[in-house]
């Protein structure tokens, strides 16, 4: 990944909002000179989470524990509840221009709403994402030797596909075709359920994105094996590949499809079912575009779902503070 270090590229958003990527692939505490205004962290479930949450806290003037509750549509912030349409209160309570997100412990909806909250302030803001890959993921104990090992990452999906206010593209009767960009991970059921729960009467095109290259050689096989059933059953438009630990290449895929979807006036929806770097890309894109929809299944992450601390990344994104367009 070091070849990408220092790579810069800019993405001009439709509504003049400009965001700029600055990639610093490998995290090193020594390189961070100025403390962050605020660090957002959530509950750590495994050693890498405890590591990055600890690092994040030490790098910022203030640490904020945050997690989104899909059932109440609100963010729990340091024990207080903020509804998803009162995101300005989050910024009021934690003002800052230089924000650190511990992407290892934060879930996708947390990241999405934090980004939207600060972007809506229409001021320059810099988001840094700290993320540690695992050494290994937990695999299932099988009763049958013939079964291939499966990663056990989630316990349940109680709130599956509940919309997130502000990220719902419209009801079925509007009969708008949708392009759904699905970032695939190691749990094949998640794609199957996504397709199964989606309203079949509206035409949908599924653009499937595999995390290739993966964190570790051969992990892409897990993803292919897990999702191969759905590949044959789903009416899919195309398959894409984007580095599993590279939010920038994920972002490029989204950007490309966003351009393409404009033509037929389809709703573009993102479904981050894959790795956290892919989720970061989805959160940035959707956080900066009002017209993007989200389909998410809120996995309840298993305790000790991974072991060890692999490569740790710091991704940096700057937004210029221009207005976020209305619908």
């Amino acid at each position, binding site marked *: 990944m070091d070849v990408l270090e220092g790579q810069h590229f800019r993405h001009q958003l439709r509504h003049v909002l400009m965001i700029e990527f600055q990639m610093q692939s490998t995290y090193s505490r020594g390189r961070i000179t100025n403390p962050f205004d605020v660090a957002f962290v959530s509950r750590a479930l495994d050693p890498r989470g405890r590591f990055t949450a600890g690092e994040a806290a030490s790098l910022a003037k203030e640490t904020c524990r945050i997690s989104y509750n899909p059932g109440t549509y609100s963010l729990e912030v340091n024990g207080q509840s903020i509804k998803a*349409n009162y995101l300005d209160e989050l910024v009021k309570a934690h003002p800052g221009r230089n924000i650190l997100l511990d992407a290892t412990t934060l879930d996708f909806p947390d990241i999405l709403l934090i980004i939207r909250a600060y972007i809506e302030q229409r001021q320059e803001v810099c988001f840094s994402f700290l993320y540690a890959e695992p050494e290994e993921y937990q695999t299932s104990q099988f009763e049958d030797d013939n079964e291939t090992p499966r990663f056990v990452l989630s316990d349940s999906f109680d709130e599956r596909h509940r*919309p997130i*206010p502000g990220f719902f593209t*419209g*009801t079925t*009767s*509007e009969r708008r075709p949708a392009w759904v960009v699905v970032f695939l991970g190691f749990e094949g*059921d998640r794609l199957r*359920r996504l397709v199964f729960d989606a309203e079949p009467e509206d035409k949908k095109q599924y653009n499937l994105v595999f995390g290739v290259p993966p964190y570790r050689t051969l992990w892409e096989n897990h993803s292919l094996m897990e999702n191969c059933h759905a590949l044959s059953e789903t009416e899919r438009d195309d398959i894409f590949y984007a580095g599993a630990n590279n939010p920038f290449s994920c972002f490029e895929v989204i950007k490309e499809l966003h351009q393409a979807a404009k033509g037929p006036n389809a709703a573009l929806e993102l479904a981050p079912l894959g790795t956290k770097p892919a989720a970061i890309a989805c959160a940035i894109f959707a956080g900066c575009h009002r017209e993007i929809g989200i389909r998410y299944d809120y996995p309840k992450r298993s305790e000790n779902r991974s072991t060890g601390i692999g490569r740790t990344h710091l991704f940096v994104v700057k937004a210029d503070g221009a207005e976020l367009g209305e619908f």
Partner: protein
Amino acid sequence: MIEHNFAEAFLKNRAELLPDDVWGQFIVPHFISSTAVLKEKKAVKIEGGRGCGKTILMRYLCHATTFSRNRKNIPDTALGYIGLYWKPDIRFCKLLTSDWLESYSDIAFEHYFSLSVLEALCDCVDSISAAHFEHGSIDLNTVQLPPTIGMYFDGNVNSFSELANRIRTERAQFNLWVQNPRREQPLLFQFKDIFTALLDTLASTEPRLKNSFFRIFVDEFENLQPSQQLIINDYIKQPQSRFCVSFSVRSHAISEFFTSTAEQLIDPHDYRTINIENEFLKTGQANFELIAAEVTLLRLHNENFDIGFPEFDVECLFDPRFLDKRNNDEYRKAVLARVRRIFPQMTSTEIAQLACTDSALRNRLEKAILQGLERRKRTDIPISTFFDGIDPRVSVVAASVLHRDKPETDEIIEQVRMSVSNPAASAFTKREGGWVQNTLYATLFYLYQGLPNTGNLLYSGFKRYCGMSQPNLRYFQELCHQAFLEANLDRDNKECADPMVVPPKTQAFAALQVSTKLVNEVERAGANGKSLHNLIMRLGHLFEAAQRRPAQGEPEVNHFSIDEADSVALKDDVHKLLKEALMWSILYRTDDTKNKSDYDIVQNDYVPNPIYAPYFGISYRKKRKLALKAEQINTIFLGTGTQYQDLLKNYTNKWMSSKDNILGTNYDMFS
């Protein structure tokens, strides 16, 4: 290149994939004439399992179909009952709850309902205006709307097309407000008054609409939030003079219906129930076979294939007025005969003959007979005794009988001989309770079980396809689709010159494919899909194990009942999972209950959906059951893998005498 792509014709077997106008797609089922669904001014509950055809029935009853542009000479009577279809957006409804909208949630849902119904009415006005009526067209686009309508929309709304435009704007604003209630709140209203005003206007301006009754059909009621269901129930409870609200719900999903004032809805006082699966079961296999045959021919006809059956008048399929004609014996015979030529069926006798000639089957049959003889220490008897000049059915069944403890070997040989000399007196071939009659199917299943790569012909043939899919026409069409697909792939197949004939072997293979796919699909059945999948796998393996007994003394065990004595020991979670299994039609319950409450699970037989039978290599015919104790049910439903394996081992040990196991060489479940 594939020249005859018949498979495509059966691809769109879910109503959601079809347009709102299903004229030309939906075949009026025979049960419809005996139900109230066509002419009913109070609510109708359309009930059934997944994929049984609730949505397509509703769409058939709604305006897009009634006034279809594909329908010629529509009688004015079609204006008597006009249906408006609404399928709520379930994801959106999750935002219309007190968790998000607090005290506005109910009125917001009412508003969503209102906008949807009014939009459906505008679409309906378009349908009527474009329809080909026998007595001349009706133009409703010029109807002047009363000034009160504008009050709901902040401005003048004069015509239905203006109304349709206003609703679109209104809907967009409503969507934005729902996602951010800090925005300016739109005017939220109930639809009853405005809808009645619009219907009055229609009735007074167009004489042919004077007595029209509108029926709003709400699809997938069970997926609404509980508070939203109460609101719909309020409408169901109070039919109006010009309209009522009906709904569809998945069987077993909801057992009691209440209004917002805690009044219970009572069948038949408040609504009438039409359970599609029960209706198909009630009217019997013959009626299911007829409609399945009609579906087959119609789908092929609709794709412009020549079905070689000029007398087949598809127009009769879509209009209940022709039901009598379709009940005619001659018509039935002709339709069934045509489809039986497409999916030819080998009789069990023919399959028995094959078992004596096909090398793999014959091999397995001889092995079974020899082991039976070995078990009886009578290897002195030449194997030819069971084949030379013997009815193949007797040869096959002998393999099972030899594995039983009784009767004596000489007696069996005597009965074999008698089956030739005096078949009516032989224990094998006698008409009532003969061994052939009782055990032929089971022994054939047994023979095929050892040959997983040989297509089991007992899963082929039109009648058997119906047996495996009844009462679900979607499954039947899946079978047709796969059968034609396999037939196309099977390029070397020279068995039949007519491409519109699927050879039995190909059908058998297709049945296995479809069964496998649908067993896998169970994983996606709701939030508990994984548990349900686990359940069907465990039940299937248990019946599969029962099928592996060479003696076949209790043939075709494929369902279970629950032992009443210790039913109190059933866990709560078992009840829940059982209900889910019924709701998703993974299990069927045979209701022979008398004076028993709806969810008294103790008194009933539970049959796995017969479409799963090919996957497990078991019989799809409901024959014998296994009486299980509560403790065993608990283990099968919720036990750990090890607990279940122990249970299975216990049964297998009980079922197989030690020597029998030798035959089960292909049986490696425990290896």
